[in-house]
């Protein structure tokens, strides 16, 4: 539409954010200053611009002052832009004619000790926003169709739960597992805490349900080779036994799980046969008492050591692995049940028996005669071999203040769940991040715990962080809701911020085509670059690299950015 550029009429709303901003930045002064800026026809302050009242006053001002551009000076656009854009849209203004000046995260909160300078900076930020908003243009978000098919990566309890729940809602699901069989970590586990059922039986039921479901296609011994596309329209290449399978997918769930840390070099692990990890113990327990007898003859005394290789000073294993205390209690009680005369010790730092049931679980273990010995990080227990092949654990009982020497038949190390080495590769293919600890990193720790920042990709279970079966199932069901939303709606609005080629300037050199990681730029029949809008993610690298400077980025045009630069450096004089 060849609309005539109307003169910008900018409204500026400066937020106190309670005292988060107002306590350090002189908000009334910023408002007065804003009124002096070019194109600004209205400026006001709000206690909370994001409150219903604040939103209402934006809408009112748009009508009353005939605003065609809005600036809110408050917090980060990364959380609040949608809300304010929504307010603009409600008042009939194109939501892209809006700009946030981040005077909280980037100003009041980091310059608390310099209120005068913070106020000056806030003015600068407002001036930048006004300069930019004056040059912004309306944008439309193209709509895209969503394929109602989900891909679940990982066939453990989390992946199977997600797959079943999505299939139960009527969506088609591909479940990809790299091992020959479904089941994941639980296949190695003997019994589950706190309920005590056998993991293999439960897994069996799940596998049957998954295999028998008409909406689920199971691909075992299969790996993800390549992921292209975007929410609603992923093209996934799966490699199964040498054969490439191409799938068209709407949403992707990462349920790749975790593995147990092998504490080589710690407490004699790897040196003594009688030092095992908890999972290794479970694998023996699965064979029943006879398997134990066969391997250790008889268990008179067992010592379990907690926090082996976890809760370290520095990442990547600074975290608590959450489940190990209950795992130790569970296995200690099984041993005690099988060998009632044995002594079972759990040597711990802090028992993480949180929540409704685990405190009780801990209590039951004490009542069953399991002995708990507390150690501190500063003086960890020591494990040595005795001449007769048994082991000796020396531990300083921090609560009783005594040194204990425990001869024992078996030492079990509670080691953390750690991410798979190759989680990195998957994270690159999916373009989703890993955290410091190597686990997949969610969009927001508090409020988007199972979403990724990238639309259409979700995470659940121990791929996200260590957690037990119930917690994994909760998350797995959770992603079955998150992933179902776009698939149920079927149509989504796509990114409006894409690149545009000025055909008159393009020489067809093809540099942009090479650069675009999404394959979103192709040559048309005239040899001129063409952007496929729904595939463009809007990074702008093509534009910043185009030799002819023929590509511009919607909403991040050169002149819009230059306006910000000038606003910073040329002060108001310009």
């Amino acid at each position: 539409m060849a609309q005539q550029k109307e003169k910008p009429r900018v409204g500026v709303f400066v937020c106190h954010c309670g005292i988060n901003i107002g306590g350090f930045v002189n908000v009334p002064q910023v408002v007065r200053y804003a009124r002096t800026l070019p194109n600004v026809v209205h400026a006001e302050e709000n206690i909370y611009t994001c409150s219903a009242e604040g939103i209402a006053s934006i809408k009112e001002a748009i009508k009353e002052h005939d605003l065609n551009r809005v600036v809110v000076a408050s917090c980060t656009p990364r959380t609040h832009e949608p809300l304010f854009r929504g307010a603009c849209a409600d008042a009939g203004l194109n939501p892209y004619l809006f700009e946030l000046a981040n005077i909280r995260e980037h100003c009041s909160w980091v310059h608390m000790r310099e209120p005068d300078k913070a106020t000056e900076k806030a003015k600068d930020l407002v001036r930048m926003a006004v300069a930019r908003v004056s040059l912004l243009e309306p944008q439309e978000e193209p709509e895209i169709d969503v394929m109602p098919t989900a891909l679940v990566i990982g066939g453990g309890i989390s992946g199977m739960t997600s797959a079943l729940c999505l299939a139960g809602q009527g969506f088609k699901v591909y479940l990809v597992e790299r091992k020959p069989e479904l089941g994941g970590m639980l296949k190695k586990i003997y019994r589950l805490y706190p309920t005590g059922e056998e993991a293999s039986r439960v897994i069996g039921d799940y596998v049957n349900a998954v295999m028998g479901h008409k909406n689920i296609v199971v691909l075992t011994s299969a790996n993800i080779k390549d992921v292209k596309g975007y929410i609603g329209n992923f093209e996934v290449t799966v490699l199964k036994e040498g054969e490439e399978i191409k799938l068209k997918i709407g949403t992707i769930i990462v349920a790749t799980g975790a593995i147990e840390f092998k504490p080589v070099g710690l407490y004699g692990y790897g040196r003594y046969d009688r030092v095992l990890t908890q999972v290794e113990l479970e694998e023996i327990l699965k064979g029943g008492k006879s398997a134990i007898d066969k391997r250790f003859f008889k268990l008179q005394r067992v010592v379990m050591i907690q926090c082996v290789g976890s809760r370290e000073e520095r990442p990547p294993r600074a975290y608590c692995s959450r489940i190990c205390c209950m795992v130790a209690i569970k296995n200690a009680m099984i041993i005690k049940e099988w060998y009632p005369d044995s002594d079972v010790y759990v040597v711990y730092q802090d028992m993480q028996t949180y929540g409704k049931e685990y405190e009780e679980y801990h209590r039951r273990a004490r009542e069953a005669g399991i002995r708990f010995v507390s150690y501190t990080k500063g003086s960890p227990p020591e494990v040595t071999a005795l001449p007769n092949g048994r082991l000796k654990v020396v531990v300083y009982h921090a609560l009783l203040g005594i040194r204990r020497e425990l001869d024992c038949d078996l030492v079990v190390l509670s080691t953390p769940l750690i991410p798979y080495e190759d989680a990195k590769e998957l994270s690159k293919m999916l373009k989703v991040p890993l955290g410091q600890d190597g686990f997949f990193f969610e969009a927001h720790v508090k409020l988007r715990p199972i979403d990724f920042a990238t639309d259409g990709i979700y995470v659940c279970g121990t791929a996200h962080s260590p957690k037990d079966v119930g917690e994994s199932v909760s998350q797995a069901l959770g992603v079955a809701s998150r992933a179902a939303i776009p698939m149920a709606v079927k149509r989504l609005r796509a990114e409006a911020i894409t690149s545009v080629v000025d055909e008159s300037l393009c020489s067809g050199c093809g540099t942009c085509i090479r650069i675009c990681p999404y394959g979103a730029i192709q040559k048309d029949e005239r040899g001129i670059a063409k952007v496929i809008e729904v595939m463009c993610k809007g990074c702008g690298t093509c534009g910043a690299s185009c030799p002819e400077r023929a590509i511009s980025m919607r909403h991040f045009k050169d002149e819009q950015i230059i306006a910000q630069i000038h606003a910073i450096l040329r002060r108001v004089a310009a």
Partner: protein
Amino acid sequence: MTFEPTIIAFLCNWCSYAGADLAGVSRFSYPTSIRAIRVMCSGRVDPALVLEAFINGADGVFVMGCHLGDCHYLIGNFYAQRKIKMLKKLIALTGLEPERLRLEWVSASEGARFAELVKDFTNQMKALGPSPVAGEKPDPNILENLLAAKAAVEDFRLRVLVGREGEMVDEGNVYGEKVSQEEFDEIMDEAIAAEYIRNKMYIMLKKVPQSVKELSKRLNIDPRNVLRHIVILRQRGMVAMAKVEGTTPLWAALEVGGR
């Protein structure tokens, strides 16, 4: 009053802007010197924008992106890295300290690192003093040099070389041959120097028509080289012979169309 530098920071939306947000949320304080411009990706930072900032008197320009390998757009930060590498070489030719331009990677979880980097860069700029082109009386020579540099990065040659560097060095050219990094750097350095000088000459000739000899003296380069550049500028339609004084032709800049 002590010198307070003005630093323009280009922050990518996904990592470094988020890192700056986290610095705020965590209340890590840092100097007020910095003014952030949010871009979606560090790869979006056109070299011309950086020079625009210096031309207008920025004391420092900080470009931040996701750590290599973490780019929300996979590879944008690699392009940022190549652009900055080229820019630093180019800026060094202008007489402005190339340290005034800095590239760092900051992730969304590195609020503390963000604050530290801002502190560090601010101190660095304080030690360096105000930009020679900042303030009321900018150094006319350096300003002119920066304008030449900006014109150079707006032109095809440097842009295409930077845009294709990864392809040439890592993937191989159209013949499937890989160009070694050293070889490529050599080509790049030569191109940077040539494009800079050509644009500088163009700006000089825009002011007043000059002879090869005059240009050679003022630019302190061999007259033969000057002539070579003149030939190329003429081919590009940027200069033309204006008049002949005695036996000496004077060259003048032509108005160049487009942007």
